[in-house]
């Protein structure tokens, strides 16, 4: 929807550029939009990464493409309802977004994507305890001239480090670790301990082998070295903290992710779409299982 110029003198100098608004402007403005919605709904959240970072922690030349916020866990449903009321659409649910079941993905025609985090991957403490610890030194940082709550410096560093542990190709520990003072590193390690993020932090810093016995070792190993879908599901199964969690992993592995299918197709999938994808998924799992079995047999010594 385009509007007419507002008034005579700036004719042609005022427009509603919702189609071609540059990414930097869209993301900068989207943070305050989400913040305002949260404020009106009485929801507490923290803005993470991108424009929410302290100036010295932004990797040069790296621009965000979406909004990341960590929501006070008790208020997650309220925040989702508020986004919906303001014209945002949910693209994926928390349970289907990733191996960590950590975020729901929302989209708005003007503001693009926003990841609404219920927890931060790598933190094994409860979401409430994690949010509380990451909020301790939070402060208001202007983003597009609007005050948005962001974590303190130590929490910002830890969030970036845990993020890098699951982001192949983005191991930016130079800025977030190597250039930090010994005192700052100690504070990051201390905070990681308080949110149960020691293994993920070790993965980010290249010390994962010190945690071989940890249930989440295989998962971080997968993120570090890659692997097939079956490797990922096996790692997720091992890392699940409870029998019900392991059962959810098994069910998720076999079931088509409707959110992802919708994004892939660009429309709501029909029953036929789901059935076709389901058969393809099972076939892929069977083929991958067979491939792994063959590889295992090849490794066995000859009798």
């Amino acid at each position: 929807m385009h509007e007419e110029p507002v008034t005579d003198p700036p004719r042609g100098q005022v427009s509603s550029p919702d189609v071609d608004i540059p990414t930097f402007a869209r993301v900068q403005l989207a943070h305050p939009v989400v913040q305002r919605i949260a404020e009106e709904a009485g929801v507490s959240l923290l803005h993470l990464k991108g424009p929410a970072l302290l100036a010295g922690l932004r990797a040069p030349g790296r621009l965000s493409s979406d909004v990341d916020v960590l929501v006070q866990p008790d208020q997650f449903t309220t925040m989702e309802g508020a986004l919906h009321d303001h014209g945002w659409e949910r693209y994926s649910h928390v349970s289907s977004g990733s191996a960590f079941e950590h975020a729901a993905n929302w989209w708005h025609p003007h503001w693009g994507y926003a990841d609404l985090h219920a927890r931060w991957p790598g933190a094994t403490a409860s979401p409430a305890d994690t949010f509380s610890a990451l909020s301790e030194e939070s402060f208001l940082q202007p983003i597009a001239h609007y005050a948005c709550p962001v974590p303190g410096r130590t929490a910002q560093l830890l969030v970036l480090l845990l993020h890098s542990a699951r982001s192949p190709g983005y191991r930016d520990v130079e800025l977030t670790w190597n250039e930090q003072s010994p005192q700052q590193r100690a504070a990051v390690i201390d905070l990681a301990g308080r949110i149960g993020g020691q293994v993920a932090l070790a993965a980010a810093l290249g010390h994962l082998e010190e945690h071989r016995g940890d249930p989440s070792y295989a998962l971080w190993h997968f993120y570090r070295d890659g692997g097939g879908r079956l490797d990922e599901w096996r790692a997720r199964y091992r890392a699940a903290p409870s029998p019900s969690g392991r059962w959810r992993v098994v069910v998720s592995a076999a079931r088509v992710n409707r959110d992802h299918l919708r994004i892939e197709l660009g429309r709501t999938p029909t029953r036929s779409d789901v059935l076709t994808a389901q058969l393809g998924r099972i076939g892929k799992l069977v083929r991958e299982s067979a491939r792994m079995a063959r590889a295992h047999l090849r490794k066995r010594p000859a009798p």
Partner: protein
Amino acid sequence: MTGPDRYAVAADVAWIDAEHVGEARAEVYVARLPDGEPLLLRDGAWAIWHGVAQGGTVDDIVGHAADLSGAERDVIADDVARFVESLVARGLVVPTPSA
């Protein structure tokens, strides 16, 4: 006795200048929160916006816009006043009566 109205960016408005990311363009993106559409103000509108962002009377804004754009104050004064009123009508700018 009160002086002329002063103007300021409304509290529920976010805005970002292209210069923020090193773009040498006279452009600013503005949105009223949380449901307003993004607006692009460029050139003369950009200069006026920055005048408003400094805060002040219409006369102050005219002076600031003239400095930024290189235009003559007398030539742009009426246009600036009308544009400021249009920004007020959109809820992007608010008058803050002086004491």
